[in-house]
């Protein structure tokens, strides 16, 4: 018997239900786990996503895309195959896709985390037979500190910069991380500004009902923003560009899971790195596998071969899910909007 889900040239495909999950080419029916560029690509005929993620997906897929939604947990049937979406905790509207057919259940996690995040629903463990998991940070060196402790560190850094009259520049991926950070900031310290790419998504979050502190768009070609007390949220690609020139003296830091490694911080010439990721760390990955109750695990996106080998040693049927285009996590992309692109 062939697998319920299999990798085809277009992407992960369910033949029985005739739909794709996060396809990398244009298809008829695409079920989307979340709106990051490596998961949601424009051009497909119909999209299906979790209801809270609709606004965000719209900003990425364009105004003419046909987007159907499901509430979290609400089942639907596609050619006799049962499909439902469950919170992945990755960012607003991110979903795990549960696919059930003839008594067999698969769960595709997309990207996910178990940590608390005030801007999205928490991860919901879903029991299944086959668990398809990401492994961006699937090495035991990756253990995240408590988000509350990281938030306190960020606010203390901002406070110290403000006291010294330096503008704080916080580099973060535009979708998800930037909004999560905004929600963790202490707005009494000073004004918060966002780069245009971040601002568009801040608005999509607000339209979806997520409460965020007041944030101003950085005015074009203006000088001296925020009188040295402000904090600017900008995508990593803004680092070292003249765009930052208008803020006068700045202190720059980046928030990413990769900041855990000293070498990455040094390479990026960042005096400060905050360890905050929207992906599972190693202990939570192991926990998620256990909570799924799955006897078979397919690992993708990251340290796939390492995690698969480890799970096999622990008695599970585990394998690497060979996806095209998505290589190993490499630490140095600045254009992408997710940690997956690497440190």
């Amino acid at each position: 018997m062939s697998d319920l889900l299999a990798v085809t040239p277009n992407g992960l495909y369910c033949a029985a239900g005739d739909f794709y999950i996060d396809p990398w080419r244009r298809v008829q029916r695409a079920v989307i786990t979340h709106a990051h560029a490596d998961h949601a690509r424009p051009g497909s005929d119909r999209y299906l996503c979790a209801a809270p993620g609709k606004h965000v997906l719209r900003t990425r897929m364009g105004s003419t895309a046909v987007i159907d939604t499901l509430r979290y947990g609400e089942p639907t049937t596609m050619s006799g195959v049962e499909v439902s979406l469950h919170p992945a905790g990755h960012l607003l509207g991110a979903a795990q896709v549960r696919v059930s057919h003839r008594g067999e259940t698969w769960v595709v996690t997309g990207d996910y985390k178990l940590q608390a995040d005030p801007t999205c629903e928490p991860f919901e463990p879903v029991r299944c037979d086959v668990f398809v998991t990401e492994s961006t940070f699937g090495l035991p060196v990756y253990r995240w500190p408590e988000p509350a402790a990281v938030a306190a560190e960020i606010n203390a850094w901002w406070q110290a910069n403000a006291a010294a009259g330096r503008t704080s520049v916080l580099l973060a991926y535009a979708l998800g991380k930037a909004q999560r950070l905004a929600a963790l900031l202490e707005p009494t310290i000073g004004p918060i500004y966002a780069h245009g790419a971040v601002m568009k998504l801040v608005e999509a979050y607000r339209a979806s009902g997520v409460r965020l502190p007041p944030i101003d768009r950085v005015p074009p070609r203006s000088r001296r923003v925020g009188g040295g007390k402000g904090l600017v949220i900008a995508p990593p690609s803004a680092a070292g560009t003249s765009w930052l020139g208008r803020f006068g003296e700045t202190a720059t830091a980046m928030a990413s899971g990769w900041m855990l490694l000293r070498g990455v911080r040094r390479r990026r010439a960042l005096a400060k790195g905050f360890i905050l990721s929207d992906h599972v760390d190693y202990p939570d990955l192991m926990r998620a596998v256990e909570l799924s109750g799955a006897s078979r695990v397919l690992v993708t996106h990251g340290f796939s071969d390492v995690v698969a080998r480890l799970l096999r040693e622990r008695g599970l049927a585990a394998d690497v899910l060979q996806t095209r285009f998505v290589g190993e996590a490499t630490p140095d992309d600045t254009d992408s909007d997710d940690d997956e692109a690497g440190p």
Partner: protein
Amino acid sequence: MRHFSELYWRLDGTTSTNEKVAALKDYFAAVPPEDAACGLTVLCGAKQLRAVPMKLLREWAAEAAGLPLWLLEECYAHVGDLAETLALVLPETFPTEPQAFEQPAADSFSLSQCLAETVRGLKGRSDVEKRQVVEATWRRLAPRERIVWHKLLTGGCRVGVSRTLVARALSELSGLEPAVIAERMMAATIETAEDFQQLLSPEPTAADGLRPYPFFLASPLEAEPDALGEVTDWQAEWKWDGMRAQVVRRAAGVTIWSRGEERMTDAFPEIVAAAEQLPPGTVLDGELLAARPECLLPFAMLSRRASRKRVTKKLLADIPAVFVAYDLLETAGADLRALPLSQRRHQLLDLLPVAFDRPPEPRGGGTAAGDCPGPEGQLFHSPLVVGRSWEELRQLRAEARRRGVEGLMLKRLGSPYAHGRPRGDWWKWKIEPLEIDAVLHYAQAGHGRRAGLHTDYTLGVWDGDELVTVAKAYSGLSDKELVEVDKIIRATTVQRHGPVRVVEPTLVFQLAFENVSRSTRHKSGIAVRFPRIQRWRRDKQPRDAATLADLEALLAQAAGRAHHEGTKDTKKSSS
């Protein structure tokens, strides 16, 4: 350990010189002198003891973390730093055993105590005992401190700070001149509280009698020299391919100091004997070379000589050494460094009238150096290379490889003997390197700021359809290119052996090097000296890269010059 670890992370976290000096001052002001001495030793990059083999430490950490060893190896390959990898996988807090004895608070665990008990104290102990100490120390230290301690334990604690900066911090702290501190740091081993107090003592100390002067280092000349002004304002000398050193002759005796500020006195007894004939209060700056009266010997032989702790009679006869002086820094006890070079040179020639001149190969070869053997002796001055124009010097420089020298040194006649590497007065004008295009064969993740990126490349050339390795090279690409190459490496990996990846031959790099010699180190049977990547040849197909025959041809050219084949290429100090 808390103070030292704090210092380590502060130095690591900044590129600003002022912040580094501030961190050093805070450290030296906060700790007792015995800790200051220990810290200073580590900061100055003294050779460290490897108390526990890396292999064992990995095994113990894997067990403590509950991980299979292969998984720890994967982590190491990704992180690129063992000390950090171990600290990242170890449990943050260990469950305390009920019978555990009372541990003092971590900050009362001083660096000197830590080094004595958990590093030096491990010498000669059994593996079981070592493991007990290691596990107990993990319990005592916070994760950040563990990283630093792991580095101390495995003999690899290197801090990104120069001696000049350390001297500056200590000078600001003590009110003494930075030069006095720097000189004392060179002359004395600073191990105890007393040593440290002596270092900062306002009174002259015993070390003052042996101390060399901080070396003046030349900067590489990247452009053409014409921009330096009139050729008549400059002095040109050969850039000898040896070891830069100072010979210090004082009333207390003779000491020979390397540029790395290590004493090399014992390795060169014949130089010491010759220098004893000089009047006390004489300091020479120059180059140690291996040479016989009839020819100059290759650097590899000098390096073999310098690495021996005990110099046998046979070694003395096989590889005789000479000292070729460039400069006179002290005479009759008077410091000459402020005088212009032309005046210092005048006095140097009075002291050492014989110029060093040797053909690079035995029995002549029709070279400019002539066919007759050079003069006997150990101490010489370095002769001038005279050119009436930059063009003439350019032509003379073109002879450098044939003469077995690295190029020309250009020094402004009016220059004082400065301290460190200030730009402007002293330049090294090296010969153009040899170049080939080579193909990336193996790659490995780098360390430090390149951790997690595959930046250590082993390059090969074609032997028929097979790639044979010829050199390992680390740098030369921009950060952006490194990232791009890393991606290609990951995408074209065909095999992995632990951290080493074998890649499909797709990437071609232009490899530059100074020389070629036979060697068993690489599969090609050929080793190149100072290999570095010059650029990424995106315009070239792997098949267009060099062949073994191309290298053999370079070797044949080189063999026309040096009859002794280099054995092991060791790091050398260059001026």
